[in-house]
């Protein structure tokens, strides 16, 4: 049964955030008998709150507190992430891919690239492999653990036929955390087509209806929704002691803690550390390296939409319905370091296609194009981007949000490597559709960032980053980073599986650490 803990109970581990990192860590710790309080800024929805409407769900799920984007980011919505129990696992498309071995060794593999702050991760694929294995089993990833892959929809069939024509070898319907058959008390996918608006039947893995209720069933877990973390407190020895948060009525409370794990996604996590500055830690918690908030990565991304010679109806079925992996390899002959994945993506409805296909367009020619809506196919291009010191999160000097906290300013500018990769990917994507006689091809720039990484990165040397390979901060032994913020580099792959694997690995370390201290 779900239980409640006293605010003064300093035996609990406090986790900030309930998404892929926080929700997974909470359940893993609770399963080990460790008491956990999870502070989640957003409300707790049920499947009944999930409807097949893009605008409604965008408003219901998204993190819309003020953020300012600069550089190449959307100025008013730099990130597209969620403020809800389950975090961005409610919204994610569910591609669950392992990093490749060389991607843990970015600095060694790619060398010293000007303008990049590349490091090798302090862990290897071999270190993480057993936890990838557990994560895939937990999430029911298709194509692993003898779980069949999903059937391909029309949009995938177009992409696969084009892939074959242009000579790609490795393409299939992906490794998806979407049930292809009933599993873990959840049904098989009905090919509804609104994955990113929240799966209305729970076929897609989300901590909202997997990790969170499982944690509650242990009797070692309390979820506090509508609870925005404001400040992490510490004692004279420099150990963290609790988290101050605002409840739904705006009242402030402090939950005492034996350890604090922050998993608020790559803007809120460093923001909380920076907002927790004190006389002892004037630059923010865990920031002796000056790396908190730096090296923000969002993946190289882009989209190709194509008007095909026949009907596709690309809104039908799983949105990320398949993948081409040939370009994910490391091959500097293409003119850039790192690789990228090619994954199907539909148009987010008629309104979404009209808005995004050619931003700002109108008139008869554009209206004629939109009349071919049902002939469109689409794909998303996602690849490794390089860490850069100036890309990151800072606090606005004067502007405050509804909690009285400084508004975060998020800056990202493409590295020339990112631009070279996007150009290559746009051309490769267009060629796939052109091989099938596409009538028109549209190349789109990145949307608001969904893959956010690196602002509290892992490093072997405390001078270079914020935390070690377990996400434990270099400066404060009972303070942990538990989300994608800890990524040293971004890899080409969608980040969620790696976040979950790291959270499982971290849970064992925290359990050992706490037991030794007792």
């Amino acid at each position, binding site marked *: 049964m779900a239980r409640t803990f006293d605010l003064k109970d300093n035996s609990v581990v406090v986790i900030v955030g309930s998404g892929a990192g926080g929700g997974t860590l909470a359940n893993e710790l609770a399963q080990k008998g460790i008491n956990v309080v999870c502070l989640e800024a957003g409300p707790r929805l049920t499947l009944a709150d999930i*409807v*097949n*409407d893009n*605008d409604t769900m965008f408003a219901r799920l998204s993190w819309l507190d003020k953020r300012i984007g600069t550089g190449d980011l959307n100025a008013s919505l730099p990130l597209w992430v969620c403020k809800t129990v389950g975090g961005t696992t409610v919204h994610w498309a569910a591609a669950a891919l392992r990093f490749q071995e060389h991607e843990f060794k970015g600095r060694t593999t790619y060398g010293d690239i000007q303008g990049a702050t590349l490091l090798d991760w302090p862990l290897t694929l071999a270190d993480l492999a057993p936890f990838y294995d557990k994560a895939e089993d937990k999430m029911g990833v298709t194509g692993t653990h003898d779980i069949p892959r999903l*059937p*391909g*929809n*029309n949009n995938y*069939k*177009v992409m696969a*036929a084009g892939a*074959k*024509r242009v000579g790609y070898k490795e393409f299939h319907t992906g490794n998806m955390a979407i049930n292809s058959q009933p599993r873990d008390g959840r049904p098989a*996918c*009905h*090919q*509804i*087509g*609104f994955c990113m608006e929240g799966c*209305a*039947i729970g076929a897609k893995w989300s901590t909202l209806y997997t990790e969170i209720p499982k944690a509650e069933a242990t009797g070692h877990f309390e979820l506090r929704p509508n609870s925005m973390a404001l400040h992490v407190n510490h004692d004279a020895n420099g150990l963290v002691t609790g988290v101050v948060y605002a409840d739904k009525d705006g009242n402030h409370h402090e939950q005492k803690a034996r350890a604090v794990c922050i998993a608020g996604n790559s803007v809120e996590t460093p923001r909380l550390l920076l907002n927790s500055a004190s006389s002892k830690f004037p630059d923010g918690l865990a920031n002796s390296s000056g790396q908190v908030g730096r090296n923000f990565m969002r993946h190289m991304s882009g989209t190709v939409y194509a008007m095909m*010679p*026949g*009907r*596709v*109806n690309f*809104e*039908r*079925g799983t949105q990320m319905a398949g993948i081409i992996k040939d370009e994910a390899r490391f091959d500097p002959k293409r003119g850039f370091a790192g690789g990228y994945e090619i994954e199907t993506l539909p148009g987010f*409805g*008629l*309104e979404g*296609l*009209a*808005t995004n296909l050619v931003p*700002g367009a*109108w*008139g*008869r020619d*554009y*209206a004629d194009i*939109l*009349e071919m*809506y*049902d002939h469109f196919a689409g794909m998303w291009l996602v690849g490794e981007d390089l860490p850069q010191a100036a890309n990151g999160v800072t606090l606005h000097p004067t502007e405050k949000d509804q909690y009285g906290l400084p508004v975060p300013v998020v800056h990202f500018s493409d590295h020339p490597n990112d631009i070279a990769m996007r150009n290559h990917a746009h051309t490769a994507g267009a060629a796939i559709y052109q091989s*099938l006689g596409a009538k028109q091809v549209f190349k789109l720039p990145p949307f608001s960032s969904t893959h956010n990484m690196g602002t509290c990165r892992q490093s072997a040397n405390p001078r270079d980053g914020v935390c070690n390979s377990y996400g434990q901060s270099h400066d404060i032994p009972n303070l942990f980073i538990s989300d994608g913020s800890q990524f040293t580099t971004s890899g080409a792959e969608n980040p969620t599986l790696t976040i979950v694997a790291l959270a499982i690995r971290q849970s064992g370390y925290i359990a050992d650490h706490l037991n030794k201290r007792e």
Partner: protein
Amino acid sequence: MQSDGLPRRDFLRTSGITVTALATGGSVIFGHNHAWAVATTTLDPHTTQTLLVMTHDLFPHQRLGEQYYAVVVDMLDKQAASDPATKQLLIEGVTMLDSAHGKSWADLPDGTRVTVLRGVEKTAFFTTVRTKTITGLYGNPAVYKMFGYGGPSAPLGGYINRGFDDIDWLPKT
């Protein structure tokens, strides 16, 4: 409605649309033969009529009757009713369009109207109307099927038994 290849010289005359002022301050748009009507509460007849023509010029679709564009005007009117700044923006925007040729913009020939719009497409007025037209037109469930968009599918059991993989024109090799 306009037919392709027959440029409309006078949108308002040939569309059969009429707009009437209401004593309460708004107006009513009547479709051809009064087949449908949309009442506004805030915008005057001239502004209402001009916005109706503008929404059509932004995204002209032969397959859509004028009543779907009237829905967009209704949404703009509601926004104007709740936000005086929007009301002012719309009224001043229409004045700006009318000032281009010293006569009512809505009465200009098709090509001339579009040229005037091209000249103001960076303005807040234009952006506001364009954005609302996309939402009001392409986000209208009654419009979905006319573009072959399926809309919400969960209440129908998804597409698992309704053609998610029914494509039939792809080459075999």
